[in-house]
């Protein structure tokens, strides 16, 4: 039980706890920002400025009755939210969120602020994102109701379609950064050009960032790509028949997927934890600020844009985004070859 091992265990628990907190904070932020965008007040009764609203929501959800349709397949019905939530948490485990730190000299070797260090980290994120499709398709199937099945199949078809553009947008960054490990990609973005423009891959890959954000919004089933869970069309899509904690787990999974997509976008395109004015060991503050900016962008998108119809959504993913991502990769590869020859 060396101090380093203890620190790593504490770090794992800390990351888990902070992800849970981030979901709660996102619930509040979503409702408050939505309200302000629509020129109304939002939650303001529970606690100062409505800050205790997520707590009230959690307590309410815990006290609701847990229902299950009689003809539903019991095992799969219980398994689906577990798969969704597990994949959401697991995807964040390889994302680094700060520079190596020795916690002010308390531990001998440097602790990496990342739960698991693998040298194929991006592929692991991508693999676990592919697995999260199963939570949705099983939820739709096992509920044994037509709204759920349609919602589940549409949602999973949308996710696997946009996974391609997601991966190809990442490939552009990999070609420039020359590594699969997220930590090395972030470290390649340290420093500045001309003294004030940071060396972010965003400036080298603007189209790639755009494709990644659009595909990320579609992957997490958020507006304007949230047709499968649209209240007006499909009751509530694949989570129609779920209540209480299972429903909460689907929502938890959705918010944590948003956080993971934002964190990976920050690491790949926005320079991770590198920033001016602060020493390296406080880089996680910059990371938090950047992730928060992207999450605000997510919420802003939801409450500003109308929803895509399902066939428009699929046509956009296959006929516009995928060719654009392929062309982006070709141009990036040509550029790297030209400038390094």
């Amino acid at each position, binding site marked *: 039980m060396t101090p380093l091992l203890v620190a790593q265990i504490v770090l794992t628990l800390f990351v888990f706890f902070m992800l849970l907190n981030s979901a709660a904070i996102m619930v509040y932020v979503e409702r408050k920002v939505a309200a302000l965008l629509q020129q109304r007040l939002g939650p303001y009764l529970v606690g100062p400025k409505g800050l205790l609203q997520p707590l009230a929501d959690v307590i309410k959800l815990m006290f609701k009755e847990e229902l299950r349709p009689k003809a539903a397949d019991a095992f799969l019905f219980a398994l689906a939210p577990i798969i969704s939530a597990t994949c959401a948490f697991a995807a964040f485990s390889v994302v680094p969120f700060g520079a190596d730190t020795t916690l002010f000299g308390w531990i001998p070797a440097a602790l990496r602020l990342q739960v698991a260090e693998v*040298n*194929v980290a991006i*592929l692991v994120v*991508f693999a*676990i994102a*592919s697995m999260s*499709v199963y939570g949705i398709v099983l939820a739709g*199937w096992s509920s044994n109701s037509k709204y759920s099945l349609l919602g589940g199949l549409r949602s999973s078809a949308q996710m696997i379609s946009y996974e391609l553009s997601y991966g190809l947008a990442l490939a552009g960054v990999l070609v420039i950064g020359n590594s699969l490990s997220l930590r090395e990609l972030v470290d390649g973005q340290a420093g500045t050009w001309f003294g004030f423009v940071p060396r972010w891959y965003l400036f080298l890959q603007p189209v790639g960032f755009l494709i990644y954000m659009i595909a990320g919004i579609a992957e997490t089933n958020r507006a304007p790509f949230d047709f499968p869970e649209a209240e007006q069309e499909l009751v509530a899509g694949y989570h129609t028949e779920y209540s209480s904690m299972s429903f909460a787990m689907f929502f938890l999974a959705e918010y944590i997927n948003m956080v993971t997509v934002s964190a990976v976008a920050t690491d790949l395109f926005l320079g991770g934890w590198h920033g001016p004015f602060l020493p390296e060991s406080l880089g996680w503050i910059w990371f938090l600020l950047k992730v928060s900016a992207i999450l605000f962008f997510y919420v802003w998108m939801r409450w500003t844009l109308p929803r895509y119809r399902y066939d428009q959504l699929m046509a956009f993913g296959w006929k516009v985004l995928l060719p654009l991502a392929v062309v982006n990769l070709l141009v990036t590869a040509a550029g790297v070859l030209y400038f390094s020859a």
Partner: protein
Amino acid sequence: MLFYVFGAIAIVTSLLVIGQRNPVYSVLLLIASFGALSGLYVLLDAPFAAVIQIIVYAGAIMVLFLFVVMLLNAPHEDTEYDERVHPLLRPGPMRFGAALAVALIVELGWALTRRADAGAFPSASVSSVDAIGRSLFTDYAFQFEVTSILILVAMVGAVVLARREGQG
């Protein structure tokens, strides 16, 4: 130690795959088997193979199987045989299938363990994704391009075969 755990999971889930009546459960058990195999690839210092096993097999091919099973909504098999007897226990398949499996295992096991150099592995050498990529695009470039044509042919073929009569 982890080898035995992953190996046991792979064998048990594969046996359950061929023993289940409900095809949805078969597909899910096969996904678990692929997960165990992916763990075995990590133990064999092949992280690239492990990750693409999850992305391609467990994450794409099995989703395809699951879609087909759910959309076809087929009745469970075998209405001619006695419904109460499990498929693996009916006389014909039981004798032939089990005998075939046992014969294969004994034969392959005997042949494979006879090798004099089937001993311990040499010291660790993680082949980086970088090296695999270089190899794919230089030594095996022709095969790589051929697989892309193969995938195109498969896509076109699947769309044509599954089309309803009378559609353009």
